[in-house]
């Protein structure tokens, strides 16, 4: 099922590659000790290195290197034990050194791949070309003063990973799925928080179109797209624009474009002729980055289980459906929560509670899995109270709601509210007796073969017991007293 855009002159195929900039999750910047927290006062997280003062020198942050290696390993990519930093030279007010330190010729991570799954269930691999480390620039603020521009250097020197894909994607959906998958992997690895609103993750989208079976045509780069939805929209808008150019007899020129989210169109930012000559050359302040193979293996061994593996394990070991396993592994924190609930318990029951009652409670309370209204331990304890017969399923729902409201553990709520289910055979017998006596006509109908009335009797007994009767015991008592219906 391939994605094709029908032009006026026939079908067109879309070719997409993504360059994703992911901010490395680390306390300090790539080459200075300055902190990286988002949202700080302007220019409050700037060292003399970040501000490009005379005589200041970069020193590589080991943790940022480890994060890049972890990411490379998570993308099934080659880790280059020898890589090098280059200077990318250009002038801009928010680029204090007059160059960005990046890895141009020899990136730290080489070829890898990501597997994506589409809505129809098909899976395909998207190739990773490379991943390299580089510094972010500062930020120019043009709207603070009528005649002046302000510069905030807090971001200057923050570590970024640029992750470049092969031109392997063929539809907006694939591009979206790739970015979503990449984000999921980064978040699992803990190497990027994936926060697209804050700019921790942003994508440059390379798009070209071609006739089916053709080689590549000229591509355009749509810069700095900051949501998965916009990536999908930008791909389609840019593809349609290019098709129109070709079909009107024109030629698509290689250029950099911007996506206007309000109008859903791309517009030209700069043409190839205006492209900077970055005069890349090896940064003489930094020796080549040489990694110890054993250190890399240590990072590999300590890698967390990634979403695909975790999902497969849930299907295999827990017998969950592909859908449920996918939902539960979408975020590492959800999966961790689920596994804490499921540990030593019925995994399917745990899955139902997490995806049903817990997700509903998160929605209702506007909280997230990092800070849930009910802890995984408490939810597990609730499941235990069901397993040992203390609570019926219905009572458990009631207790859960009380847990959401109060944040207290289930045992305490059961005690306080006297919600313990009745397992006393005498009390159940008495309730059954009373219900049957009050409904003699229905008893006769049941015995005459109207089997579905059984549910009615169960409901009446539970009602009489204020919902606290142990359902199994109630069923058993009813069957015994009613006998088998005559067929």
């Amino acid at each position, binding site marked *: 099922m391939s994605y094709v855009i029908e032009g006026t002159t026939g079908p067109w195929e879309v070719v997409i590659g993504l360059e994703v900039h992911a901010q490395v999750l680390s306390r300090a910047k790539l080459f200075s000790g300055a902190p990286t927290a988002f949202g700080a006062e302007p220019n409050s997280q700037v060292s003399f290195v970040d501000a490009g003062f005379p005589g200041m020198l970069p020193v590589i942050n080991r943790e940022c290197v480890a994060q890049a290696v972890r990411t490379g390993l998570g993308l099934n990519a080659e880790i280059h034990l020898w890589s090098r930093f280059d200077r990318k*030279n250009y002038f801009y007010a928010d680029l204090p050194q007059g160059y960005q330190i990046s890895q141009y010729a020899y990136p730290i991570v080489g070829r890898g791949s990501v597997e994506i799954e589409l809505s129809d269930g098909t899976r395909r691999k998207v190739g990773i070309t490379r991943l390299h480390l580089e510094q972010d620039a500062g930020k120019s603020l043009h709207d603070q003063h009528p005649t002046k521009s302000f510069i905030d250097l807090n971001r200057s020197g923050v570590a970024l990973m640029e992750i470049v894909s092969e031109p392997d994607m063929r539809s907006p959906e694939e591009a979206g799925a790739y970015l979503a998958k990449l984000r999921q992997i980064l978040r699992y690895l803990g190497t990027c928080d994936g926060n697209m609103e804050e700019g921790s993750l942003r994508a440059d989208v390379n798009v070209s179109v071609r006739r089916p079976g053709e080689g590549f045509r000229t591509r355009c780069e749509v810069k700095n797209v900051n949501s998965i939805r916009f990536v999908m929209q930008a791909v389609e808008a840019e593809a349609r624009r290019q098709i129109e150019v070709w079909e009107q007899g024109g030629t698509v020129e290689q250029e950099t474009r911007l996506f206007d989210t309000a109008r859903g169109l791309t517009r030209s930012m700069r043409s190839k002729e205006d492209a900077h000559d970055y005069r890349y050359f090896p940064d003489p302040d930094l020796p080549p980055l040489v990694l110890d193979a054993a250190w890399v293996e240590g990072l590999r061994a300590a890698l967390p289980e990634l979403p695909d593996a975790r999902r497969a394990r849930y299907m295999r070991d827990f017998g969950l459906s592909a859908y449920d396993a996918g939902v539960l592994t979408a975020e590492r924190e959800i999966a961790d929560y689920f596994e804490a609930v499921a540990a030593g318990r019925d995994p399917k029951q745990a899955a139902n509670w997490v995806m049903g009652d817990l997700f509903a409670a998160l929605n209702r309370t506007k909280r997230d899995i990092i800070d849930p209204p009910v802890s995984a331990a408490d939810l597990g304890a609730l499941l235990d109270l069901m397993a040992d017969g203390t609570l019926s399923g219905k009572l458990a729902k009631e207790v859960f709601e009380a847990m959401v409201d109060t944040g207290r553990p289930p045992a305490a709520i059961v005690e306080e509210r006297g919600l313990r289910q009745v397992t006393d055979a005498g009390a159940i017998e008495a309730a059954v007796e009373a219900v049957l006596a009050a409904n003699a006509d229905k008893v006769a109908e049941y015995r005459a073969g109207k089997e579905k009335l059984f549910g009615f009797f169960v409901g009446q007994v539970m009602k009489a017991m204020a919902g606290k009767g142990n359902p199994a015991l109630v069923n058993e008592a009813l069957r015994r007293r009613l006998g088998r219906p005559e067929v």
Partner: protein
Amino acid sequence: MRPTDLTIAEGLAALERRELSALEWTRACLEAIERLNPRLNAFITVTAEQAIAAARASDARRARGEAGPLEGVPLAIKDLFCTEGVRTTAASRMLEGFVPPYESTVTAQLKRDGAVFLGKANLDEFAMGSSNLTSAFGGVENPWKRADAPELRLVPGGSSGGSAAAVAARLAPGATGTDTGGSIRQPAAFCGIAGIKPTYGRCSRYGIVAFASSLDQAGPFARTVEDCAILLRSMSGHDPKDSTSADRPVPDFRAAVSRGVKGLRIGVPREYRVEGMPAEIEALWRQGLAWLRDAGAEIVEISLPHTRHALPTYYVVAPAEASSNLARYDGVRYGLRVAQQGDHLRALYEATRAEGFGREVQRRILIGTYVLSAGYYDAYYLKAQKVRALIARDFAEAWKTVDAIVTPTAPSAAFAEGEKQDDPVAMYLNDIFTVTANLAGLPGISVPAGLDAKGLPLGLQVIGRPFDEEGVLAVGGAIERAAGFRAAPEVRA
């Protein structure tokens, strides 16, 4: 003896014996500076008050028995080293009013060891030059005079011309310099003093205004090889703030100076006999080798076949790095800003950099930008890097047969202001014997070895194995002892 005539070793001994105080020594230097600096222009900034206070503090430390290895030694600091709270200009209008809020590692270590800073020494703008004439604060007069034309103002060499002139004229017993292509060794030779550029990585570059990062290296000037060794020990050492600084122990350099050269093999590269070299320099070179032979060394002719490519290689690599290193001087955050209200960013850059940088700096930025440009990178920068590797390999080969290499430091004695100024290439030729040590990252020292017929000092250069400053100092010490150089410049305290 007047304090200004003391060497560092003598001064330290006098301080130790309480025959001299740091305050007396510093005052004597400051008086000499006050008297002679208006003429020599060796200092851009004199920090007399801070120096007096530092000298008093030093005497107090010595009195408490807390004397550091350089306790009370007054020094001139090349104005390329950032000094906290003291204006650091790099001899450029661009940084005319720049006061760094931080201290370079080298100067911090000198202070730690008790040194007293007299002020900031003049230099070629951003260390680009071999005459000190590119300084935005004016040239420096070489205290030596040509016997046949005593009225001529001679250059002190460069780029560390102010440091060299200050030490030669007895304004300071020692000084710091930096050497990217010969900027310590050539002015040392022109001013009749000693100066050593250690191995790349021996001294931290942190806080030194960068010219060409892969070549820049700090080092000391002094009037004796022993004094250079004393200063170098304090300046050296691993610095985690400089990723290119070497993590290896700092030996007792001073002990190496008197070690002698018995049994050493001294290489003489045949490619250094360049056309047009004055006969006097050729003769002095032969004389130096004879002294070493007499002291027990064996002289071996060697070949460094890629030598003739060194200068063009240097003048591709150094400007390339400089063009990038100097991009930060853009008028946005500190230093000079030239802009009219309403100017666009580009106009700010153009006006600031046109006014802030002198002609030689602009020339090198343009050369560097050109050789890194798309389409020229392979032919220039990449080719130069390959040749640089070959030059380093030449030396590596040589170390298989020799322990040190001896050459002249410069192809001429000090020249007069105006003599080479209109021809940048003639000026660049000054570095012909010195750039190879920078390209290969090797230690090199210049030692005063004699006077030419016009009474101007000439230096001999000793180049050694990587991190064998001790070997270089040993050979330099032997030349110094044999030469018995006692001459002093015309203009002096």
